[in-house]
């Protein structure tokens, strides 16, 4: 039950919210639309749902052209950011609503709704009103309500943004587990990069109405194509460096006084922006090894599981994480930084 977008444009009056995007969501996978607010990701999701119709382009769901079909006529269902539980219906009535509207008899709808509630761990809550549930429970009702219809595509619009951090982690694990267990095709919208990486098979990063890059979470994290992506996908230090090509697959990147060999087949020679992942910086006490980058600790903070350091170097101030917490370095200490090649990324300018 794949979803295929071809050259979709969405305009509101004179402003263009989505400018000509194409992508494909494979059957049984969870694909996340990730991006900052206002990037067009929610509009894109609503166009899959049929709540907005595209100005140009073609949408297919499960091989069928649905471009001009309304939400009701498409085999999709959606979990809303606000949950959109009907306040005048009980939890059971909410979950059974879609089944009843699909023409299923009352007893059967109730049976399936109870099954759906059991699937999200809410047995026995059927007779409550939505307002009598906690945020996480309301979220589960919303998921159950969408799930019981067994849609070709299930859509999530920032489903976790109203929950606390611990619940957020738990719910995203539940959603991922449910998706894998039932082999659902899911399109998921979020602005939280960690959440996206935790749940997705593929991530589509959007910015200003366009697709910035798409790929697996690992692809995007380790090989971000643009500075925007390097900043958006996890922490990274932007640094100015010099690139020299060694052979077709490798380049040598010079940062301050250190040189690192990096696997890269596309970067051009000369000055370039280099993104350095904080976890790829190994902090040693000076003078350290020969090819290390010397620096001074500017700030140090203790976070329980690891230390965070801001370090002034010739290549700019770098932010580094260090798992050694038993002997923390203090501000002003001279250090030598060794950069692991997999955390050094040459990005396009």
């Amino acid at each position: 039950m794949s979803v295929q977008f071809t050259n979709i444009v969405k305009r509101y009056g004179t402003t263009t919210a989505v400018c000509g995007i194409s992508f494909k969501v494979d059957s049984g996978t969870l694909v996340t639309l990730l991006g900052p607010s206002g990037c067009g990701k929610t509009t894109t999701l609503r166009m899959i749902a049929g709540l907005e119709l595209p100005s140009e382009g073609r949408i297919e769901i499960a091989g069928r052209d649905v471009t001009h079909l309304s939400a009701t006529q498409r085999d999709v269902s959606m979990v809303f950011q606000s949950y959109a539980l009907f306040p005048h219906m009980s939890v059971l009535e909410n979950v059974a609503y879609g089944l009843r509207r699909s023409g299923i008899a009352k007893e059967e709808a109730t049976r399936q709704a109870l099954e759906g509630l059991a699937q999200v761990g809410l047995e026995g809550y059927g007779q409550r009103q939505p307002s009598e549930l906690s945020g996480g429970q309301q979220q589960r009702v919303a998921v159950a309500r969408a799930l019981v219809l067994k849609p070709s595509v299930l859509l999530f619009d920032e489903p976790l943004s109203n929950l606390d951090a611990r619940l957020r982690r738990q719910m995203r694990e539940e959603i991922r587990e449910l998706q894998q267990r039932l082999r659902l095709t899911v399109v998921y919208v979020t602005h939280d990069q960690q959440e996206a990486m935790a749940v997705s098979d593929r991530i589509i990063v959007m910015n200003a109405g366009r697709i910035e890059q798409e790929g697996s979470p690992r692809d995007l994290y380790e090989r971000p194509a643009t500075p925007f992506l390097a900043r958006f996908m996890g922490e990274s230090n932007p640094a100015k460096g010099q690139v020299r090509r060694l052979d077709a697959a490798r380049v040598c990147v010079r940062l301050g006084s250190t040189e690192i060999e990096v696997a890269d087949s596309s970067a051009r020679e000369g000055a370039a922006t280099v993104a350095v992942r904080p976890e790829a910086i190994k902090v040693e006490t000076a003078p350290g090894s020969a090819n290390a980058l010397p620096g001074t600790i500017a700030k140090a903070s203790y976070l329980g599981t690891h230390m965070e350091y801001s370090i002034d170097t010739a290549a700019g101030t770098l932010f580094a994480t260090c798992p050694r917490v038993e002997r923390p370095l203090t501000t002003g200490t001279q250090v030598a930084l060794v950069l692991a090649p997999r955390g050094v990324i040459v990005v396009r300018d």
Partner: protein
Amino acid sequence: MSRAALSWSIAGLLAAVLLPWYGLEDGLGSGAWIAGLWSSEDAASGLAQSIFFGRWWLAPTLAASLGCLVVSLLPLAPARRGTGLLIAGGGGVVLFAAQAFAVGLRGWNAGWLLSLLGEMEQRQVGIGAGATIVLIALLSLVSIGLALRGAFGGDAFVAGAMTTVTASILLFTAWPILHILAQAFQDQDGALRPLLIVDRLAESKIWSLRCLAGSGGCGVVWNTLFLALCCGVGSTVLGLSFALIATRTSFGFKKILRVLTVLPIITPPFVIGLALILLFGRSGLVNQLLDWSFGVQPTRWIYGFPGVLLAQLFAFTPVAFLVLIGVVEGVSPTLEEASQTLRANRWDTFVTISLPLMRPGLANAFLVGFIESIADFGNPIVLGGNFGVLSTEIYFAVVGAQLDYGRAAALALLLLVLALGAFFLQRRIVGTRSYATISGKGDSGLATPLPDAARRVAHWIALPWAGFTLLLYGFILMGGLVKVWGRDYTPTLDHYAKAFSIEFSEGGVIWSGAAWNSFWTTVELAAIAAPITAALGLLAAWLMVRQRFAGRGALEFATMLSFAVPGTVIGVAYVFAFNVPPLEITGTALIIVLCFVFRNMTVGLRAGVAAMSQIDRSLDEASATLRGRAPQTLFYVVMPLLRPAIVGALVYGFVRAVTTVSAVVFLVTAEYDLATTYIILRVINGDYGLAIAYSCALIVLMLAVILLIQFLVGDRRLGRRALPVQGVRA
């Protein structure tokens, strides 16, 4: 959707072949027309008319219907089929309208057609069953065509609702009113003379400002405007006080309060005027008492601005209350709780959060009060004295010695401009802000009790008003139970016996009372009109709030038209517009029902718009993604959340139909006499006892109907926790 297109095409063609095209004198009931479908000129079907009876101008419309069938049958892509239906169906509607307006009782209707095409032998009368169904089918096919082309989210129901609302408002509101307003620019013979309106309006009687200088009365425009402003503000303040007391305090007599606020709305307008005169008139009880105890000379202060305003406040506060109560209930308790946690005390919360959230409702209530006031006719005519307003001026222009329809139309135009001004003012105040406070997230907050200061103010405003209402109703009740008010206070039941006596004979029950005929007609027509009024008003509200389409503002304004124009003008406009083909319905019950529906749907619309802008759009969208088609979403999600507005619209639709006087006074016939027109005649004959007794019976009837509607529709279940009884006073 293509099946629907096919069904409608077939239905249209069947109606063109198997039903009489024109209206029949004795209706379809007898079945005599079946024999004459192909042979009688009166009863012939559309096809027979165009072939055998020389009415060739019907042929293009029928061809368009056939075209729709062809488009429905061809194997086309949806968008192409949509375009085809739009062209064929839309063309059919245009051709239908063109022939209907071009050919009338005396051949060509317009001079230029006559000179262009020559004298015409044939004539045509008003449309009947066949033509009506053909027109409906064509309009439905246009809607389906629009939906197939992706308009209105590709939803045929929304497109159909849109077409229904637009077409009916155009036909039964915009057309009659524009028709009569056009008279403002025509002379007595119907020739177009645009400059005539300047003469008609440039009168000192209309614009004079002498009252500011202290000499004489002001012009009727200033009178109308000042009265309407006072009435709008006053009824909104009173309505808000009642709404707050009813929903946000632990006031013990809420039920009584609710009934009390509804009482004036179910009272025919002249009855309140009458009671005010009995109380404050020159020989009224208060004046007589003052004269007797203190020797104060009786004055005529009640006749004029104070009396009219008082009566209007009595009449329109309940409307404001009905609009506001849904709004006050809809304010999210969580937002108020949020405010209180942000260091705002209850008073600050009330002023900075609750009141602004109610702003769309307040603006709506004001608008309704304002427009009701400028359109009110009954109260100014009874209590106005020398204080003239536009609506009474129009009345005198039509019925007086002047008999000047042009002047009446010019004044009606002026009235419309005032309504228009209020409408745009309201638009500016409310703007396009969203006030969604019933969201899809369960709301677990508790409604905040009113701050003490606000509660005290509300009590001080509302309770004396309630007491005064009780007093007035006491007088009305007594008026029907004494022989002659003012002279002979002997208790009697004679008036009731005269109006409502029932005799039992061998043949069964005989309704021998004088009032039964008009009573049953009123009940029947009002009961037919009320559900249609509410359904159409709320449907229009739903379209306006939830659908994006061009011409939304124009449509909203068109619905305001019939509401803003005084009933007298509406009545005359309906008689003018529907006395001649194509729609010949003067003298039938249909025209009365239509007048009720399109005059009263605006309140349902306003209440619906106010209530619906408080329901989060994501609820509709959730329903859509859960396979709920638009009509199902409307029925299962929107309507249960709109119950207060539905009750309001139904009640208002029924009550206004029962109590209205001015609009129907030109429409009633001996066969279809209504309660109010009957009572007015009694009043004119000086038979106050019977009039008041009949009015009391109407009041009881309407109370019963309101309770029935409330019981049938029920309360809105929001799953919010109830407000605990306010125990301690701060």
